[in-house]
């Protein structure tokens, strides 16, 4: 099923901080060749960049590919044109969430829960964030994590109560000031 091409997609991505060199890609494939999680990507990193240049916005943002980036930065360290594919993937994630794309991955929910935890507490409250995430996605998966969570708990590495810092008010003031919608 062919979706409509969006020719502005390239300039949209290229204008995001640290993503400006996307035009210089020679499609050599070193990024995909280096990618730690490439086997899980429907479209490997190099192909994502080709698709951005082709204006295939919907295919890129509806795919789960970019959400597998673990920020290992091997791509960025090795790219012969000094492009930053990892930064590009995270920039695409932000666009996808802002424009409510729904790629088939739970990482979107994880990121949203993570961000919410920070907004509420000023810091990440790991227990609460994980709880919210598992309840939203698959509570039974939480059961598999139970032994590990229990281990962390008894070794005093999993505080059960949130520690909301004063700074969270400042964060929220800053957020209100920043027009929602990224860079425009």
């Amino acid at each position: 099923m062919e979706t409509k091409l969006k020719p502005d997609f390239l300039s949209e991505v290229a204008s995001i901080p640290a993503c400006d060199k996307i035009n210089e890609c020679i499609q050599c494939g070193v990024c995909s060749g280096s990618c730690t999680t490439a086997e899980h990507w429907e479209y490997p990193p190099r192909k994502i960049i080709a698709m951005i240049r082709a204006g295939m916005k919907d295919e890129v943002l509806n795919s789960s590919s970019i959400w597998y980036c673990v920020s290992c930065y091997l791509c960025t360290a090795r790219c012969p044109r000094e492009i930053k594919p990892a930064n590009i993937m995270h920039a695409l994630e932000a666009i996808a969430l802002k424009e409510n794309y729904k790629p088939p991955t739970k990482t979107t929910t994880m990121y949203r829960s993570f961000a919410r935890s920070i907004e509420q507490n000023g810091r990440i409250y790991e227990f609460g964030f994980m709880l919210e995430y598992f309840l939203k996605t698959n509570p039974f998966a939480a059961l598999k994590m139970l032994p590990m969570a229990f281990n962390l708990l008894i070794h005093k590495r999993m505080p059960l109560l949130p520690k909301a810092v004063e700074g969270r008010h400042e964060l929220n003031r800053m957020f209100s000031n920043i027009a929602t919608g990224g860079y425009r």
Partner: protein
Amino acid sequence: MEPKIGVYICHCGSNIAGTVDVEKVAEYARTLPAVVVARDYKFMCSDPGQDLIKNDIKELGVNRVVVASCSPQMHEPTFRRAVQEGGLNPYYFEMANIREHCSWVTESPKEATEKARALVSAAVRRVYYHQPLESKEVPVHPDTMVVGGGIAGIQAALEIANSGHRVYLVEREPSIGGHMMQLDKTFPTLDCSACILTPKMSMVGAHPGIELLTYSEVDYVSGYVGNFRVKIRKKARYVDDTKCNGCGTCMTKCPVKVDSEFDERLSKRKAIYTPFAQAVPNVTVIDREHCTYFLKGKCRACEKFCERNAVDFEQEDEILDIEVGNIILTTGYQLFDPTPLKEYGYGRLDNVITSLEFERMVNSAGPTAGHILLKNGQEPKSVALIHCVGSRDEKYHTYCSRVCCMYAMKFAHLLKEHVHGAEVYEFYIDIRSFGKGYEEFYNRVQKEGTVFFRGRPGEVTDVALTPEEKGKLIVQFEDTLVGKQRRLPVEMVVLCSGIEAHKDALDVAHTFNISIGKDHFFTEKHPKLDPVATMTDGILIAGCCQGPKDIPDTVAQASAAAARVLALIDKGKVEIEADTAFIDEAKCSGCRVCNLLCPYNAITFIEKDKVSRVNEALCKGCGTCVAGCPSGAITHRHFTDQQINAELEGILV
């Protein structure tokens, strides 16, 4: 004689006349001081246009000429010639650029015409003060020096020597031959490299017109085109080259083993050695950094066994002082060392090798007698060849090294030929097979069964994730034409490294006073129209020292440089532009500031007179010394203060 100025406004078709009101400008010119005639014409550079000038000189007594047309870069020589043919000194001519500086840079006729008037007015006032100048001629010494004894230097030296002129061929290694001597077969013909090179090397060695100076380097160069003085250091070989006949006995007796540079450290040579069997000259040299006698004062076995008494431990460096008219630099390249690309494992993993190491292995005269071998002595059943190592990469060299695609495919062919049943894989970004027979060679290699993957690998690793990968080198890459990451286990990886400039290229450029680019390749005078000359007249470049290239292009450039040199030798003299600087010795205070300012080293201080003097052959008329002289003692011919001030007045009026 009273100046009588003729002014000629060119239409240049519609290039000028389309924007500038040429008739109005000519009308204006008639009102200017000392102007006796002002014309406008369609194409001043044409024959009829030039005839206008010549006729006016003859019939109207015009003795100063202004042409308002295009840039002097285009037609100053044309009009100067016309003026000269009309009977005047060519320097009684001035050009006003009312095209590139005027009609081509604005769309407003009003602005263009006004500016054209100002430019013509300036030219008229200036030419009033022009003086007749004579171009100097200097003789050209018929000898030539070629620096670098690889294929480029050998070719250039033979071309010039065959015409009957003497050539000094200076090479810093003990033998000529360069990198081409290390190669096995050359693409695309698969000629044996040594077989086509050694006849030329022999010719050089035997040629009465070539003075071969191996194990020598250029210490110092002075002078200018047609007249260079060079100090060459013949490094001490500790072997008398008039006695040594290359029998090789000393090599068998020497107890010291050193990594062979020629064999890319895959074999050993002795401390007394010739780099390879077909060395020209076939004279040994003692490597004093490893020789037991020089290190500890013992041994001298070579001396004992030499039947010709050729070993001479007392030998010293010899300095030769020579004069040449032209110099050709053919210093070649070095291979990029892939050690910094840690992800490919060169130096860390066994069986990851460079291209020159592969050449030496596959060469039947090499360290493994032509067998391609793993560290364990076995032949590899599968080999990966990675293109673009150190090239097309912002972190190392941004340029493409031009030859790697072709030599990588040559390796694929040789692997199929030497190792029965070997699997060969090429990893490329683009295939650059641009030359004659190159694309056909690519096709042939494909037919032979080499598999091409489009994708530069991310890494080469020995960490196995599956049983098939155990004990192998795994190339992790994306097959970009298919869009999937893959891991391919192979037994050997060849890194197709790029060509880079020698690490001392900057020093060489300084010695010869030529320009060098950011990648340290020597800069040609014009990348398209003058690739073998440099901005320094009399110094030419050819081969890989100018930029990465294959053997056909290297030979072509070497021949081109030789032709350029022969043309100059044939003419016997060279013309020096007349607009040079001139020091009034009465005003010179001997402060020597100008000596330091001159970018061309054209000013010397005369001790006995305590004044500085300009060497007009070297002076390029840049004007720096003129501006810098605190005593105002330096005049710039054809750019005097009077002339420049007049020009400014003309614009402001």
